[in-house]
């Protein structure tokens, strides 16, 4: 599998459960070594990069850990500060600016335990900014968030474009993928399609990926809304 993204572009990785979305992201982050083949980003394996940030699914961390938001974001700079050193003024400035960029500077001294689900995702993005990441990989950051919070997180991700940060994010909602991402990668154990939403979200391709009937309806602003329709004997049923 090979795909190309411009700097600052946003890619949505979609596909049914178990299609390998998380595995792909972990391999790109260098957290998993492929059984065969190798991962290359800019011609190097992920181990050569320290500018890749990976945001895991939320349940992976112990949110009762006694650290503040500032401490959490500062962790992203551990590598830049180097062993045996303490954070310098410049590091504190970067952390402060990162918290401001994700709208959490008011809570800088709060404990991470106090955050809501959406705030946690923003905090992760803030940490990636402090890490000075050029590529951010997000594993289903919208899972478990309400619609209002979806918008908050998506706005933040869209704004990353200005910072020339490339985003690869896995998600389930095809409409969101169509509306907010420049490219879509459709996965089902292999890459079924890659490209702009218009070329990927085609009924034939979707049927192959999801083995069910999905209807693509062009929405306003050229966005696509994908309806999950009840399917009988392989034929669409209206309604």
């Amino acid at each position: 599998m090979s795909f190309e993204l411009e700097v600052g572009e946003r890619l949505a990785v979609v596909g049914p459960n178990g299609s390998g979305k998380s595995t792909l992201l972990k391999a790109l982050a260098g957290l998993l070594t492929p059984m065969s083949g190798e991962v290359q980003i800019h011609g190097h394996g992920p181990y050569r990069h320290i500018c890749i940030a990976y945001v895991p699914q939320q349940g992976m961390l112990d949110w009762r850990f006694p650290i503040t938001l500032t401490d959490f974001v500062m962790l992203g700079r551990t590598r830049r500060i180097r062993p045996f050193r303490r954070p310098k003024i410049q590091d504190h400035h970067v952390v402060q600016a990162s918290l401001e960029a994700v709208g959490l500077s008011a809570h800088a001294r709060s404990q991470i335990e106090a955050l809501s689900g959406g705030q946690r995702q923003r905090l992760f993005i803030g940490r990636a900014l402090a890490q000075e990441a050029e590529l951010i990989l997000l594993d289903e950051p919208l899972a478990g968030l309400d619609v209002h919070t979806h918008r908050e997180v998506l706005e933040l991700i869209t704004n990353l474009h200005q910072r020339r940060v490339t985003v690869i994010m896995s998600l389930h909602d095809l409409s969101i993928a169509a509306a907010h991402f420049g490219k879509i990668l459709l996965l089902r154990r292999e890459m079924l399609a890659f490209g702009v939403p218009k070329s990927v979200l085609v009924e034939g391709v979707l049927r192959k990926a999801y083995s069910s009937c999905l209807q693509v309806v062009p929405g306003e602003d050229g966005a696509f809304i994908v309806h999950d329709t009840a399917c009988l004997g392989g034929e669409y049923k209206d309604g």
Partner: protein
Amino acid sequence: MVEWLVAPLRFAFMVRGLIAAIAVGVLCSAVGAFVILRGMTFIGDALAHSILPGVAIGFISIGKGDRRGLFWWAMGTAILVALGMGWISERTRFREDAAIGIVFAGMFALGIALISTVRGFSVDLVHFLFGNVLGISNYDLILIGAFGSSVLLLLFLLYKELVLVSFDITLARTLRIRAPLYRYLLFVIIAITVVLSLQTVGIGLMLAMLVTPASTAQLLTKRLPAMLFVGALLGAIAGVVGLYLSFYWGIASGAAIVLVSIFFFLCALIASLRHRMLRFLRPN
């Protein structure tokens, strides 16, 4: 009152005991903070129990001669066991706690078996299991000082890396920080702490020293640096108060120290529950 406080200090063994109790209290609480935050309490306990065979072999081979060598036997075994457990917890296909449980029980049984071959073993076994802070020599104090300050210095210098590896191993890996190195380091730090505390509270009560002051501090503080500081303070105070109780009431010193730190924990627990209740009941 002054006389009550000063009287024990007329005995050199009490002064040595107090210094050791304070040092061990500080050390155990600081290291214990990482133990509880990483959810390694079981490993800490297992590590303490698993060094018994090393101590037993040292005990048998030294015989009635100089007991100073015993420390190095304990230290060697502890570091080996720590590295072994680090390896098990990383590679094993068993559940980690089951694998460590097997090593822990097996090593402890082996230690008891070895000691039981020596005549009059029960007295010595009691010393290993429950410690004897009043039997601390100047040589022991030097060792506690040297190794203890090295551990504290390492915690200070590698603080951010140890926090990172304890809290978010995934981030450590994406930042290409050598997570396994720091994991093993943490195991070795726990092992050294266990050996240094052996004479104060013994194998049986080691876990309490690692876990209780740090947990108390966690209830009272919000940030990790504060937790480390308050924990160290509580550990030291528990050491001193416990030793005085032991002196005046004739209680085993290790048990007295642990009971005092458990008392502190209960006070902190009640205080934090009361605080939460008040917050819950406060009308908005």
